């Protein structure tokens, strides 16, 4: 085959879907889970950082009472 990005209709094979591509499935679900976990953690961190800075700003302006 020439290029990896083109698929000539003359030499194309019909895909066989009898057996699931378990490796691909595991990779896809695994990556999705990792992305969601990272996103939730990132959001938690963002909220904490925002609250922290808000408290810091309030503290600086009003001083300690």
């Amino acid at each position, binding site marked *: 085959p020439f290029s990896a990005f083109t698929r000539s209709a003359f030499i194309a094979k019909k895909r066989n*879907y009898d057996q699931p591509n378990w490796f691909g499935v595991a990779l*896809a679900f695994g990556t*999705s889970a990792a*992305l*969601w976990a990272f*996103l939730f953690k990132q*959001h938690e961190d*963002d909220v904490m950082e*925002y609250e922290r800075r808000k408290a810091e700003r309030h503290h600086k302006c009003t001083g300690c009472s």
Partner: protein
Amino acid sequence: MAFLPDESRSLPPPPLVNKGSVWLGLCGWVAALLDNAFNRRPVIRAGVHRQVLFTTMGWFVGYFLIKRTEYVYAKVDRELFEYMRQHPEDFKMGGS
């Protein structure tokens, strides 16, 4: 300029369910459905792992894009209000 400068963390973060995430998540899901259609597979029943992955990627990218969007809007607002503060004569409301 950095994608998300440090001062962007002083802004309230967007909720996990936000416009960008929902829209790009939907785009990702539709892309997976289209992939099924183009490859002559059952459109919604096939490749669920692919649908989940594409939707997740869209949701993920959407969150960070919305964060940057809100930062850019806030920055422009800050500059606008600062200009208005420095040129009050140009922004006199009411008569006289």
